[in-house]
């Protein structure tokens, strides 16, 4: 049986959409701004219709065309006259706009045909029917209504897995941004009923913000500003201090949130118009004093509801706190203290009603038959059928401008709207009336690939065309620009594998000029006045290859003699690297621990090759080849062995040639040697890289399987989420060919496995028996004492102690890591 799954909190000030299916709850976020809530506001701006927060922003300046709080007028004959379109709009139409906008939050691509929509418990039949009609106008075939207090209770009951065997009474205390409601609920094992409700439609969090300004900030600001009756002036239209008032409103809201967590907060006020920059301290006590009358007012409503129903506090099992204002500790304390009823704050107060609606929808069986649902027409790119308008879309794909023209023409005439949204959420045209030829300027984020979606709607606002494939490159890409033929990389130390490796700074096909700041750590200490050196080697070549296979295009050595202080291992090294259009390379190096800066410029004609570095690179690769030749798995692969031997011989010859060069050789001999060296090392690299990469990929896959298996046993949701983070984009990093990236993923998987293992002390029984059998402890006597302690703990099932014993025994064993030939002088000094 298919269930409805989608629940909507259609609120007076804010609305929200959530889904509950197969035990999974999701509160959808607005793709524009990623907020869970959508302001219940609609603005008519000529041919453009804006819905949500953007519309609310315009309320102050365009009250004749912006409408909010229309929920209060649902079911009445009242109409709102929208001046810019010269038309009356009903509260039902306005609510339908909000519902349609909420549908855009669904990122899963599902089409919504049915939903549960919440209504206040005070709504009569006409108001309820009006809400249903709004749902139908928004395109829902079936709308089910649910009273808000019941929705909040459902959210609470499901979150806490409540099973009720007897009848209980709860109060739902809903203190939101603009309204206050309290409802009395009766709940038993079968149903929930609202018995009574009370409330104030004009009391909410916004009143608290204004009180902070009036009572706490204005008295302190008046002497600073040399003003009197400041509060009155703030309320006057078009007064010169209005800008300050708006800033204070924002600061007051922030302070309200801060004081819910801290005893005091500072409100910074920056008002350059009067050269004022000051900070005002606000304490929680003074804030609480402000709230007292408001909270008393809400408590009186609660008392009234109890009196009207002949109930006393002990008849109520609990008060469920809903609405953003219930996050304030003083509100919670006072309600609990004055009513002497336990409060419950376990549900997310801002989303509880929508979540409850989703829970209800998740259990409500759909009444729709398959034939009632039209085949989907959305989420297609450039698809044209007889019902869809063919669109000729023109735009510049690469631009240096910060706005770009998007022009399109419909091939068939259509009455309706279009909407262009930038996918990061920073640009939205809103619904704009269609014309045959449309020109729209879109704002671009600098230096980014800006992706847009274009949707075309018919007059019922059903989507008839979608194009999600509009990408405009701003700034970064210039068509005339020169492309980099190879990666430009930095050679760094890989301490874990005792080698140096390349790290790409700029990737192949990036467009010149390029600039980047990177931060590295010193991988060794270089003492002041010593001969040890820091090597900055900028290499052109494959970023996944061996450093010695690339072309060194910029090489800097900073010796201890140039340092004013010791360069300490682990401290930061800042590198500013830029490549000009004519391929000049500038490198600025800042050594944090020495507080010293070095600048170098390289031109292709000034290439520097270090003989000692070249010697070292050849030596390292010869060692690697010898290791490959000695590997048993290569023993019978004669063709491969011959290739290794050929490369080795050629490298040895180069080694000899290099040793015969005099230090100040002025011929191009060393450049020839360098070219041959790179060519040979590239050959070696090609022979081995794929093999190593394949091994790494296999190891990665085995580790993923192992973690999944452990998680199947433990069922930990936390570690499952951690695993999903590691394996997200798996295809991309496996195909990247970057073994260091794959190795870092293997390491992350090991950390997860280790964390799951160590979380359960009983897992250490096996390792304990292993360490018990070892006989190579340098201090065997101490080991025996620990083993005896472990045996005793095992007998008493004290697995925590067993774990500690295992750690101590492991730390006693000698370090048997093989010594390597990665000497200090081999290191670049960067990691």
């Amino acid at each position: 049986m298919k269930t409805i799954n989608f629940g909507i909190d259609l609120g007076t000030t804010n609305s929200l959409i959530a889904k509950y299916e197969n035990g999974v709850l999701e509160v959808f976020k607005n793709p524009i701004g990623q907020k869970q809530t959508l302001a219940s506001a609609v603005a008519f701006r000529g041919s453009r219709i804006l819905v949500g927060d953007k519309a609310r922003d315009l309320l102050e300046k365009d009250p004749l065309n912006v409408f909010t709080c229309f929920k209060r007028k649902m079911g009445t004959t009242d109409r709102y006259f929208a001046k810019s379109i010269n038309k009356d709009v009903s509260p039902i139409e306005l609510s339908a706009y909000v519902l349609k906008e909420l549908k855009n939050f669904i990122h899963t691509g599902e089409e919504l045909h049915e939903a549960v929509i919440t209504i206040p418990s005070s709504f009569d039949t006409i108001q309820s029917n009006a809400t249903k009609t709004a749902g139908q106008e928004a395109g829902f075939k079936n709308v089910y209504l649910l009273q808000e207090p019941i929705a909040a209770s459902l959210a609470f009951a499901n979150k806490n897995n409540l099973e009720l065997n007897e009848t209980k009474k709860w109060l739902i205390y809903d203190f939101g941004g603009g309204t206050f409601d309290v409802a009395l609920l009766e709940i038993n094992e079968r149903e929930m009923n609202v018995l009574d409700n009370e409330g104030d439609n004009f009391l909410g969090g916004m009143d608290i913000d204004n009180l902070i300004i009036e009572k706490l900030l204005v008295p302190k600001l008046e002497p600073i500003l040399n003003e009197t009756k400041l509060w009155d002036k703030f309320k006057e239209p078009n007064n010169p201090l209005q800008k300050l008032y708006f800033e204070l409103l924002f600061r007051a809201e922030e302070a309200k949130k801060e004081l819910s967590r801290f005893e005091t907060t500072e409100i910074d006020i920056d008002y350059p118009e009067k050269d004022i920059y000051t900070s005002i301290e606000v304490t929680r006590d003074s804030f609480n004093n402000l709230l007292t009358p408001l909270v008393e007012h809400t408590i009186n409503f609660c008392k009234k509801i109890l009196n009207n129903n002949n109930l006393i506090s002990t008849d109520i099992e609990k008060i469920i706190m809903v609405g953003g204002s219930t996050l304030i500790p003083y509100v919670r304390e006072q309600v609990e203290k004055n009513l002497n009823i336990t409060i419950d704050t376990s549900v997310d107060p801002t989303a509880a009603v929508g979540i409850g609606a989703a829970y209800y929808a998740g259990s409500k069986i759909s009444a729709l038959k398959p034939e009632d649902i039209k085949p989907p027409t959305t989420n297609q790119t450039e698809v044209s059928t007889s019902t869809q308008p063919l669109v000729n879309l023109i735009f510049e794909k690469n631009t240096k401008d910060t706005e770009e023209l998007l022009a399109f023409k419909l091939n068939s005439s259509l009455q309706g709207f279009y909407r262009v949204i930038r996918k990061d959420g920073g640009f939205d045209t809103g619904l704009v009336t269609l014309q045959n030829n449309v020109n729209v300027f879109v704002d671009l984020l600098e230096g980014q690939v800006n992706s847009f979606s274009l949707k075309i709607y018919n007059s019922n606002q059903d989507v008839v065309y979608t194009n999600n494939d509009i990408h405009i490159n701003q700034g970064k890409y210039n068509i005339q620009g020169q492309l980099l033929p190879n990666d430009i990389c930095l050679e760094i130390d890989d301490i874990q594998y005792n080698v140096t490796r390349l790290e790409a700074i700029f990737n192949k096909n990036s467009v010149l000029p390029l600039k980047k700041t990177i931060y590295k750590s010193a991988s060794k200490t270089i003492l002041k006045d010593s001969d040890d050196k820091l090597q900055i080697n900028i290499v052109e070549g494959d970023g996944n290859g061996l450093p010695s296979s690339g072309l060194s295009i910029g090489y800097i050595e900073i010796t201890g003699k140039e340092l004013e202080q010791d360069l300490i291992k682990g401290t930061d090294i800042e590198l500013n690297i830029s490549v000009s259009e004519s391929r000049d390379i500038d490198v600025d190096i800042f050594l944090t621990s020495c507080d010293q800066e070095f600048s170098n410029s390289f031109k292709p004609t000034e290439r520097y090759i270090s003989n000692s570095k070249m010697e070292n690179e050849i030596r390292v690769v010869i060692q690697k080849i010898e290791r490959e030749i000695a590997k048993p798995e290569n023993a019978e692969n004669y063709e491969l062995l011959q290739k290794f031997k050929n490369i080795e011989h050629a490298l040895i010859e180069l080694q000899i040639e290099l040793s015969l060069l005099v230090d100040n050789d002025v011929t191009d001999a060393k450049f020839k040697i360098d070219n041959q060296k790179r060519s040979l090392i590239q050959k070696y690299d090609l022979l081995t890289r794929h093999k190593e990469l394949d091994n790494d990929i296999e190891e990665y896959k085995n580790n993923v399987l192992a973690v999944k298996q452990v998680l199947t046993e433990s069922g930990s949701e936390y570690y499952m989420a951690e695993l999903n983070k590691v394996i997200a984009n798996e295809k991309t990093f496996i195909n990247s060919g970057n073994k260091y990236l794959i190795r870092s993923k293997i390491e992350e998987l090991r950390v997860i496995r280790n964390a799951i293992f160590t979380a359960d002390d009983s897992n250490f029984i096996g390792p304990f028996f292993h360490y018990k059998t070892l006989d190579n402890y340098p201090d065997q006597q101490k080991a025996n004492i620990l083993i005896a302690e472990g045996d005793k703990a095992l007998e008493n099932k004290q697995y925590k102690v067993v774990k500690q014993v295992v750690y101590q025994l492991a730390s006693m064993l000698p370090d048997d890591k093989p010594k390597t030939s990665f000497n200090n002088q081999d290191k670049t000094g960067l990691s």
Partner: protein
Amino acid sequence: MKEILNQLYEIEQKSIKNNITLFDRNLKRLFHDIEEQGFFIKNPLGEKFSESRTDIDATLMNNIGPESKITKVLKPIIYKKENDQLIIIQKGVAIVE
């Protein structure tokens, strides 16, 4: 994370306002690491404002027109890169004149 980024932004703005350059390098480093983590903070001060801009919660001092500009930024815009796609995780809060 958002709160940390907002605080960092405020420290940077206060440093600029008071001509304190002592922390410039540290701040640059912090912002660099933040970008490496996929976050990106934008101060839209002085930029043009139109009613299609949804990266800002704006308080309008006048009606929106072609000359409308962001004259004060109370909170910066914060972006996060997820799967190679930037998304706004915090809209800016600004005054527009």
